[in-house]
């Protein structure tokens, strides 16, 4: 149920932080992290995951396979 940020690629530009509808993104020691329990993959808010759409580095905000895909509680 979540996206994650590939830390080694993150430029710490902070673009993703304010875009996240769930306030799931924070800075920690010079790179940005997604709190997986808060991330909804933007489902219920936007068509595209905002962190992916705004991130300047391709393949940096990616699906975290450790979590099952998010299901909107419809």
């Amino acid at each position: 149920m979540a996206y994650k940020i590939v830390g080694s690629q993150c430029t710490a530009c902070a673009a993703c932080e304010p875009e996240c509808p769930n306030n799931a993104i924070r800075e920690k020691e010079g790179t940005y992290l997604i709190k997986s329990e808060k991330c909804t993959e933007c489902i219920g808010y936007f068509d595209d995951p905002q962190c992916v759409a705004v991130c300047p580095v391709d393949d940096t905000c990616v699906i975290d396979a450790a979590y099952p895909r998010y299901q909107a509680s419809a």
Partner: protein
Amino acid sequence: MQDDRQQLEKRTQNPTAECAGLVFGEQAAPQGCSAGGNGRMGCGSGAGRGDLPPEIWEKIRNHPCYSEAAHHHYARMHVAVAPACNIQCNYCNRKYDCANESRPGVVSERLTPEQAAKKALAVACAIPQMTVLGIAGPGDPLANPEKTFKTFGLVAQAAPDIKLCLSTNGLALPEHVNRIKALNVDHVTITVNMVDPEVGAQIYPWVFFRHKRYTGRDAARILSQRQLQGLEMLAERGILCKVNSVMIPGINDEHLVEVNRAVKSRGAFLHNIMPLISAPEHGTVFGLNNQRGPTARELKALQDRCEGEMNMMRHCRQCRADAVGLLGEDRSAEFTTEKVMAAEVRYDVSARRTYQQAVESERMAKAAAKQAELSTCSGKFSDIAIQVAVATKGGGRINEHFGHAKEFQIYEIGTAGVKFVGHRRVDLYCQGGYGEEDVLPVIVRALNDCVAVFVAKIGGCPRDTLQAAGIDPVDRYAHGFIEQSAISYFKDYLEKLERGDIVHVPRGDGAIRQGAYVAA
């Protein structure tokens, strides 16, 4: 020492407009003031006040960014508080500064709004020439509106005499125009590289707009529409708006003439065309694709074509975004975040005013000297125009040793007058590992389009090398005013031509140095 203190200026893109009411004539030379009618004011073009409305004139006459002459005497500083960006440009890799306002390949220190405001005040206290605070990249200030406006708010409160400016890619501009107006921001720079989505698609891989990423022509169409709309909104509200364009040979070079018309008709008062700076080590799309930047001659030809249309700015030297200091000088080491945060800053407006008055009288002396020299060659007429390079530390004087110059100022002289055409960098930034002996060829290449180089002093060896390359090393005007000396040199040049002592050979092209300007 006096000269040292007057070095101002400092950083990036600074255009220029001169000839204030009282210093009218300082730039009065070529195609300027007298022409007047087209509203151009100058920047580097030596044009005059023209028919600019008085309130706009007042805004720019001491502006280090917009007045070529003021550029010698006043400084501007930039702080980087806004790392996020909402678009991607092919000449940017985001690890470095926003290439739109400063240079790729360089990293500026990121500050919090509080740190940035304190730094601005500390610098303003130490350097009375500092009259403008800008927010530039890395990132887009309007993609980080809270940080940007907070910084401005803090500075405006503590130091109301400092002008504020910001540079943006324009995507988010329309929704922030009212806030920009409310904060009394002095001027805004928009980087407009195209008005045609076909061209834009080759420059911008994507934009992030209203929660969606757009690519290709759609991205370029949205960006262009927002840029032009933002420009119109600024103009309606009486906020000065300058347009920057990055000249990318083969992609938008021809197209920039159209951009020039589009932005002029929407109220931009100045257009600055900058060369693409691109090298593989910057890791940008253009860098990796070996997209080249323009040569000095290509750049000048395009600027000349657009100049008929509106104000062009030529003294942009694409410095790094957090540099502090004046012409060719970087004092940022004195103002590290650590030092600034530890220091107690007391802002003293009156000391700043005293300095600024001294500068005004120096500028008047310079203007008078130029006028006097010009009058001695009235009556002469010739089609010939030459370019000369000048080693200067600022203050509008020839006061730098050839061997110490990190950049040269290039002036074009004809019987119509003297006109500043740009900076030519010769520092060794990005040269990694090259030894001293390689410096001279670099300089010769950079100054290849110049007939002479004016210096305060020059050693025997470089003198011979320059002469061999057909560039006349001139130290007889040491410490003189640049423009006065240039006219005097040109007079001699014409006389020698008449007597047949020398032959006028058109010079070749000059090389534009790649990489950011860092006066190390």
